[in-house]
């Protein structure tokens, strides 16, 4: 079955999709993203593991999550957005912005002293650390990421030609099945 589909795919001039398995090599972008995801996951695992110590989680444990979470989310987003051998192109900028925003937001909340009180200055109605989390971590990415997705969709994510190629492939499979 697979070989027959291979032939049909070749007939559709989709050669890159049926290159011999040994020809496959991970692109640099994907390798970096995967390694970042693994390192970030390991950092998060260490943070959780440290909570089982007799004295409880050490002070550095939340920092591993504060940096590991943006790393893991950034890694998997880059993996998903990478297109063939072309990498992520212009999306590098919004991805970098969001990773830095998340890491900075969590870090600021961890680093600043817990000084909330009735006399605290309010930032858009909230004390500083909560405002950084709500407006920085919770709202800033909304302004950037979905817009970047839409603006780069036609060049970086999906084209009508892509959909047509996949439809042809699906039709070829259906014909084979009949």
């Amino acid at each position, binding site marked *: 079955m*697979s070989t027959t589909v*291979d032939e049909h795919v070749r007939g559709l001039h989709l050669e*890159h*999709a*049926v290159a011999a*398995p*040994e020809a496959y090599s*991970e692109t640099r972008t994907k390798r970096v993203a*995967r390694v970042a*995801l*693994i390192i970030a*996951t390991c950092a998060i695992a260490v*943070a*959780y593991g440290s*909570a*089982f110590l007799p004295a409880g*989680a050490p002070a550095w444990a*939340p920092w591993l*999550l*504060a940096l590991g*979470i943006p790393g*893991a*989310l950034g890694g*998997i*987003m880059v993996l*998903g*957005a990478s*297109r*063939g051998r072309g990498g992520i192109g212009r999306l590098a900028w919004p991805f970098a912005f*969001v990773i830095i925003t*998340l890491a900075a937001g*969590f870090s600021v909340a961890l680093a600043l002293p*817990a000084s909330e*009180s*009735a006399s*605290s200055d309010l930032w*858009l*109605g*909230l004390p500083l*650390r909560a405002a950084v*989390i*709500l407006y920085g*971590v*919770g709202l800033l*990415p*909304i302004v950037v*990421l*979905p*817009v970047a*997705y*839409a603006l780069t*969709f036609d060049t970086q*994510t*999906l084209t009508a030609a*892509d959909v047509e190629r*996949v*439809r042809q*492939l*699906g039709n070829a*499979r259906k014909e084979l099945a009949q």
Partner: protein
Amino acid sequence: MLIQAALPRMAQPAVIGVGIAYFAVIVAISVWAARRTRTASDFFVAGHGIGLVALTVASVSTSVSGFAFIGGPGLIYATGFAAMFIVLPASVTNVMGAWVLAKRMRLLGEARGLMTVPDAIGARYRSPAAQGLSGVAILVGIIGYMATNALAMGVVINAIFGVGIGWGIWLGMSVTLAYSVAGGILAGIYNDVFQGTLMAVASVLVFLFVLDAGGGLGEISRTILASDPKFLGPWGKLTPLAALSFFFVFAMGSLGQPQGVHKYYMLKDPMQLKWYPLLKTLGLVLVLLLYFGVGVSVKAFVLNGRLAPLAAPDQATPALLLNVTPLVLAALVFSGIAAATMSAVNSFINIGAAVVTHDLPIAFGRRVGNELAWGRAATVVIAIIAAVIAQHSGAMVAFLGIFGWGLFASTLVPALAVGLNWEGATRTGALASIATGLVVTLALETSAYFKVFTFPAGVTASAVALVLSLLVFFAVSRLTRSAAVGAIDPDVRLIMEM
């Protein structure tokens, strides 16, 4: 924080009237959808023919469940700002899901006519075993989710109509079942559109009302800071590790929630994915305004004596609605809560039926003859099992509900979300990670429930299982990498490279 205990009775003419009008609309939509459901593809994925706006609103509706209206504000009331870390990931999860899963799953649906999440795993790894095992994991998680949502439905319907929680469960389940069986996911989607719209309207109105009633967010914050400053610290009353752990589990775990991921198959035109993340994110922000607004304002109202201290955190929303907001707004919100629970139940019934009639038979090398008829039958059986569990399992229902999210995350994120984007992932790695997620989640949650074992502060079974299944996935794929690329079908590989 799941809706389990009885809520205050709201059975007044205005509330009952809005409730009846709500159910009448549900019935009308269901009759319309039932006439358009003719094949298994119609029943499980709406014939791959849903438009952008409908799919977006339906997806928002399914994402939030009753937790956003009752449990969430209650959690803020109890733990402070830390509870926001459950919903803050929405700033990245929708667009992350679009990049990681939406395009590839929708194109797999185009090329192969796939209908279920396990279908995608089976196709990616050319493995009926992986498809079956992920189906089992989904089914286990669904039992918990269904039971807790069925109970929540009973509690809310009892609050509106005063029929008792037991009858509320069966009344709500009967209505949901009727439209699920007759119209499948098509009825579900268009009911979700109605329900999601209702939830968004209710959420925005309540948010604006409580801000006005509290004198603005600044005044609400001042009231809280004067008596309980830790409440508005970034981690609330939890540790930083616990709050950040919420963010990790709910951000990364979103990529494994079948009720959301499954909907990618349904979009009529793949090119419409362009605006899907933006619209869904904006929709979620609207629906979640109530979560934040009610949570902080009830805290302030209790502190300044405008509301009596709550008997339980889940009373936050009902207490506010009964004592502060106009009755019509309260009726709208309660219908919105009923809508949220019914929407979640419908989605899970449909996914569970697809596992039983489609994925598990494929795993055993068989195909069911008439998937539409068997799908309808499975829908009835699953709904009845969930209702019976909800009515008779007592405190166990909370346990069942807790592990649903974590189980989906730990079993599906590595094999599905990473696997569809990394050609180096192997079938063995996928099977090992799904098994790890299933076993670790069940073992840890069961041990914790029966107090055999206590987690340290900030650590949850969901988080541990997710991290372990990811690491197992990478490690086993690495060890078996010689089998990686050759095991991918050419059409799947083409879609992975797009």
